[in-house]
């Protein structure tokens, strides 16, 4: 008798729990948020000289990480000058950004790149994303440029985010 009362109580408890189980959510909504660009990281790259082709190639991409929301655009460009410790040494003939990459951390958004003569443009569909850009450019030096031995050279890249 005692056992059947306990069993009955357990069954009643279980059935009550089953009826009581309901999904619920905690909901929130955002206000009308402004467009925004926040550069999260900038990391210089490296390039190597190829005497046979009179050009520089990127051995390590420059890395740019940008948090964006509804931006108008993001671009990377150089002033087409090659620098050493004293200043500009060469107006290079060509900068080719076509090996650069752009990826969004939000995979639901489309991110694509387009390259112009001296410019890499990253386009995204509307909304928020964190973009990781690997800047890789080939640089063709002018015919008059002669590389000095044991000398550091660099190109200056400007990443512009328009909000």
């Amino acid at each position, binding site marked *: 008798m005692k056992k059947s009362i306990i069993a009955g109580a357990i069954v009643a408890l279980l059935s009550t729990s089953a009826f009581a189980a309901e999904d619920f959510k905690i909901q929130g909504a955002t206000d009308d948020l402004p467009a925004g660009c926040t550069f999260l990281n900038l990391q210089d790259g490296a390039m190597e000289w190829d005497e046979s082709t009179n050009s520089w190639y990127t051995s390590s991409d420059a890395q740019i990480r940008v948090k964006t929301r509804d931006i108008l655009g993001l671009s990377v460009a150089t002033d087409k000058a090659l620098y050493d410790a004293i200043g500009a040494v060469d107006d290079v003939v060509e900068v080719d950004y076509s090996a650069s990459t752009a990826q969004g951390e939000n995979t639901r958004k489309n991110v694509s790149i387009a390259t112009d003569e001296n410019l890499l443009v990253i386009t995204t569909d509307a909304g928020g994303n964190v973009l990781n850009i690997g800047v890789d450019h080939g640089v063709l030096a002018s015919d008059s440029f002669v590389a000095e031995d044991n000398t550091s050279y660099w190109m200056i890249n400007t990443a512009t*985010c328009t*909000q």
Partner: protein
Amino acid sequence: MRSIKLVIASLMIMAWAPFGAQAHSMTPGYEKKFAPGDVVNLAYTIKNEYDFPAIYRLEVYDKEGHNLEEGWRVDQETVKLFSGNYKRVRLKIKMDEDVKERKVLVCSVLHKVGYDEKDPTTISRVCSRLWLWR
């Protein structure tokens, strides 16, 4: 034993993680402002969260962002910010009498980096669209 593993894991994370949050941002973003007078007074806040001191400058470009505009002035040529700091820069933009609207980009540009104020080779530039009208 567990605490040794925890220490090793923490050291590995420290080795991989960047040293602090890094960011360069500017507010406000896009603005459309009524400009009845000859001069419009504005203010932009530049924030430096790179893990090193940085110097920024505020500049006004044409709406394509290619060329510097004329007819504007800032209250400070450059802004030196330590890591995590922000500062407000005041900007005055001229509106000529016969002009009905003016569209420009107001940009904060990374100018120098570090305690030794070196020229950066990768430069961040945050630009806000500004549309003045009357």
